[in-house]
């Protein structure tokens, strides 16, 4: 008998192993040419060989991502709050904000490079541009959606507007803000990568383009692998932060495999 816990690991692991085995076999037996689909082992060997390079470029991308994401949080949360608490500002800015989401943000990347040069600033801003919207919306929704009675409890005790914000509205909104940040951090990686594709001296985007130009498909896969690892690590870091900061929330979340119709 396999426990449910073990199964949650075992099943996806089996799927991945089988897929990789078929891939390896297909490459070894020459079903696909190597420059299109190199073998798994080849990819691993090549990536390990060039690990110093991959890691260095990855750090550049990570840095751009974190800066863009950090800016999204610093701008997004206050902007969300302003939208909720300041009516005139909401009416003036909200349509613009929604409208701006129709613009494919990636299309603005060349413009940003033109404006801010080929350095870190432009990459950070492009990552920010792609990543900040979910944080704004989630912050606004989170801050607005508090039961009035929760505010009344604090008001009745004589809470000032500032206290209402710090003691009630903000903590109440944190789960929503965190949900937005989880979406946003993976988007920030995309933003940074796109910026690197267009113009960069280094970063994983540059590495991918170089590998492509040299027909080094193994390294190309290595770069993609590095990006996957980066995304997973960032997401897990967000989860860990959430677990640490919102222990009361984590335990109430729907766990995978929970039947939504079943009573708790």
């Amino acid at each position, binding site marked *: 008998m396999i426990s449910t816990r073990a199964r949650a690991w075992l099943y996806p692991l089996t799927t991945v192993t089988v897929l990789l085995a078929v891939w390896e076999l297909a490459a070894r037996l020459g079903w696909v040419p190597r420059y299109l689909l190199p073998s798994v082992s080849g990819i691993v060997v090549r990536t390990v060989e060039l690990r110093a390079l991959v890691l260095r470029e990855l750090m550049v991308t990570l840095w751009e991502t974190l800066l863009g994401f950090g800016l999204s949080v610093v701008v997004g949360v206050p902007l969300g709050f302003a939208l909720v608490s300041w009516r005139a500002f909401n009416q003036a800015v909200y349509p613009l904000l929604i409208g701006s989401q129709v613009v494919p943000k990636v299309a603005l990347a060349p413009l940003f490079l033109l404006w801010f040069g080929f350095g870190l600033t432009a990459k950070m801003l492009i990552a920010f541009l792609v990543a900040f919207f979910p944080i704004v919306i989630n912050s606004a929704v989170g801050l607005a959606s508090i*039961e009035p*009675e*929760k505010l*009344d*409890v*604090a*008001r*009745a*005790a*004589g*809470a000032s507007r500032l*206290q209402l914000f710090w*003691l*009630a509205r903000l*903590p*109440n909104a*944190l789960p929503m803000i965190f949900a937005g940040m989880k979406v946003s951090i993976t988007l920030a990686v995309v933003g940074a990568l796109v910026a690197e594709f267009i113009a960069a001296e280094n970063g994983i985007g540059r590495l991918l383009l170089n590998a492509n130009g040299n027909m080094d498909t193994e390294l190309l896969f290595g770069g993609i692998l590095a990006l996957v690892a980066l995304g997973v690590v960032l997401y897990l870091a967000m989860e860990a932060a959430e677990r640490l900061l*919102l*222990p*009361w*929330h984590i*335990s*109430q979340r729907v766990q995978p495999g929970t039947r939504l119709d079943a009573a708790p």
Partner: protein
Amino acid sequence: MISDGASSGMSVRTREAAIAQPDGALQPLVEAIEVSKRYRTQDGTIAALDPVTLVIGEREFTSIVGPSGCGKSTLMRIVAGLLPPTSGSVRIGGVTVDRPYVGAGIVFQDPTLYEWRRVLENVLLPVEIQRLDRAVFRRRALELLDLVGLTGFERKYPFELSGGMRQRVALCRALVHDPPLLLMDEPFAALDALSREQMNLELQDLCSRQRKTVLFITHSIPEAVFLSDCVVVMSARPGRIGATIPIALPRPRTLDVLGTSEFGRYTSEIRSILASWGVLRAR
């Protein structure tokens, strides 16, 4: 700041001294004079509460019973200073209420605990807001939690508690800063019948020990009679006070009082008043 702690300690003492002084005669603590509430909607104005006058003496336990939507909660929110009345005025201890009245502890039908705070931190919320001496009131919070049987749960989060326990925490939070006035809006309506009787006993115990003035809103006629010195019966929308019935049952009241003929007389009197308005109809 040193003066901060000293003044908060003092205010508790003076309050107790003030309460201890005149025994017997009830000074009015709450005076709601001709208060009404109208809401403007798309289809014109809606009267939630017709002009109502309600006076509650110091240390008196007053209940309001009435059908849903009769404006009971509106009246309570006006008394608390959470909602400005359309007309009329509220005075508490002789001072006009024009902002949330800090000397009141409020309990709603939902516990409305902050789920990001542990039990003890929830109870200490008013202390934090009013910047009172944390050490002093922490002790008081622990005493209150002990009084309602929640010792050992101080570090739990609200989601780890049952509904009854949560409502007990809400009660402690309302009492922690030692407000002279308790405002309770159907506080036990969401509890099962047994927990409810238990909470009624505990509330009576708390109020007699801590000498509170209470405005208690309920749907339950027996609950109102059991707890109160005075039951106010309100009519349906727009709310009006129909009758005020003093309850002369001796205290402390035990659950045995529920079976006495006197208790039955009070409940049937209130029922017949509501029936005469067509709220309760006989078949």
